[in-house]
């Protein structure tokens, strides 16, 4: 579904992602791990076309992403949930979710009902401003916004970072459910090795912008984590 080969991605003249190859199958669950600053966020931003330049190949279901403007990538069904959530602070919860529908190919602007079943709190807060929600609620809103577009694949960047422990579990469950029950492909940047191991079909370990190790979920052992993830 999503494929990269010999991918380099740049901010200015510095190559942040270097010579990366990967392949993500439709319906699969991929985790991206690595220490702070190794380029995990940059890899997701590269998929969305938010870095300054790239070389190499990047394809999504046969379409060449490399030369496609960001707004068209969204319309292919790539839902991006960025680190720090980046919901629109002065938009109401409703406006934030409706914004997700702007990427829909069918032009519908209604909010799919299942979103409120996943996140009932958002229904109660529809009229509140996004900026006034707590961190956990903003994360739910960011996922809801991506779901409103009817995504084929979700790119989630540390969705549980800085969130109260009781909501972390709930968000993890939702991500699993979206993948296992709704068949949405998931690419997740994650610090929590336990969850990554439990959820993933495949993991990608980054180190200084390069892939240090990949494998299936079970191969993400504590020894591997000690070697590549502790400081």
């Amino acid at each position, binding site marked *: 579904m999503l494929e990269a080969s010999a991918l380099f991605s740049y901010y200015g003249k510095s190559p942040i992602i270097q010579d990366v190859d990967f392949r993500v199958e439709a319906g699969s669950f991929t985790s991206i791990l690595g220490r702070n600053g190794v380029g995990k966020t940059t890899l997701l931003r590269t998929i969305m076309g938010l870095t300054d330049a790239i070389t190499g190949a990047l394809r999504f279901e046969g379409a060449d992403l490399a030369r496609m403007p960001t707004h068209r990538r969204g319309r292919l069904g790539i839902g991006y949930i960025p680190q720090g959530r980046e919901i629109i602070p002065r938009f109401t919860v409703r406006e934030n979710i*409706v914004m997700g529908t*702007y990427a829909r190919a069918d032009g519908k602007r209604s909010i799919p009902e299942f979103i409120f079943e996943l996140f009932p709190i958002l229904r109660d807060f529809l009229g509140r401003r996004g900026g006034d929600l707590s961190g956990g609620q903003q994360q739910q809103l960011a996922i809801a916004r991506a779901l409103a577009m009817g995504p084929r694949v979700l790119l989630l960047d540390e969705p549980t970072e800085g969130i109260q422990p009781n909501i972390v579990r709930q968000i993890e469950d939702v991500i699993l459910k979206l993948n296992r029950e709704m068949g949405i492909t998931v690419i997740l940047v994650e610090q929590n090795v336990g969850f990554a191991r439990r959820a993933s079909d495949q993991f990608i370990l980054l180190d200084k912008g390069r892939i240090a190790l990949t494998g299936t979920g079970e191969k993400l052992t504590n020894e591997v984590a000690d070697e590549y993830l502790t400081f």
Partner: protein
Amino acid sequence: MPAGPAARDSRPPGPYVGWISMDAFFNQAFAGLSMASILLMVALGLAIIYGAMGVINLAHGEFVMLGAYSAWLLQTYFGFSILVSLPVVFLMVALIGLAVERGVVRWLYHRPLDTILATWGIGIVLQQLVRMGVGTDSRYVARPTILDGNVVLGGVVMSNYRIFVVVFSIAVLAATWYLLTRTEYGTRLRAVIQNKEISECYGIRSERVYAMTFAYGAGLAGIAGALVTPLVSVTPTMGTYLVVDAFLVVILGGVGSLMGTAVAAGLVGEATALFSFLLNDTLGRVAVLCAIILLIRFMPQGLFPDRVRR
């Protein structure tokens, strides 16, 4: 306090406060209100373009001027009354704005200083083109005949045309509010203003939103220029004077609040009219400028600062 018997003959009749004739005062206040309305439409366009793209559009006064010349052209060669011309003028100047944005401004969004210089240059070019095409003579546009006549309230005489300008500018304000807050275009624009990258991730073409916004702001300036033609003469430099006041309005009102722009336009328009009445034109403008500098000294964000946590 009544005026002394000797003065009574040379002064206007009606009640007085001190040496100020109340009738003259209110007439001046009404004239100020109609100029404030023109100012509002000019400032709205400036504020929207600045608020959306961070572009200080120094060609805005020339958009006003082009609106005025468009109205003159349509009246002189096609016999259109201003009322009929308004939508045509809006479209004409919006298209010119679109061409300026697509041709020049869009390449400079990341370079604020260069946009200032570039729009300044465009303004000069537009003025010069008009000078070469139409000449430097003042042109005049008749007000629409159905708006001839006055409404008289006691000693205050309000021309129907000025009343129309006031009402029309309020309608433009309301339409702009609706456009920005209640339509999908407006939502897209507000999304792009707050987070361009994420907006693009969700399918919004920020380039197109910027182009439309610039064109809309230019169109508003054009309408203001057309509406002001029966009140002032049309010259290639007419926009400069108006746009200076409009910049004061934007600074005073704060960016990002239509209400702020409206109130500030009212204040600047009225203050200019009344200070000029109490002092004289030149001193009046100096007084307005000093008042604004003082206000900004104590309220740097303008009258209606944006108090939202991010």
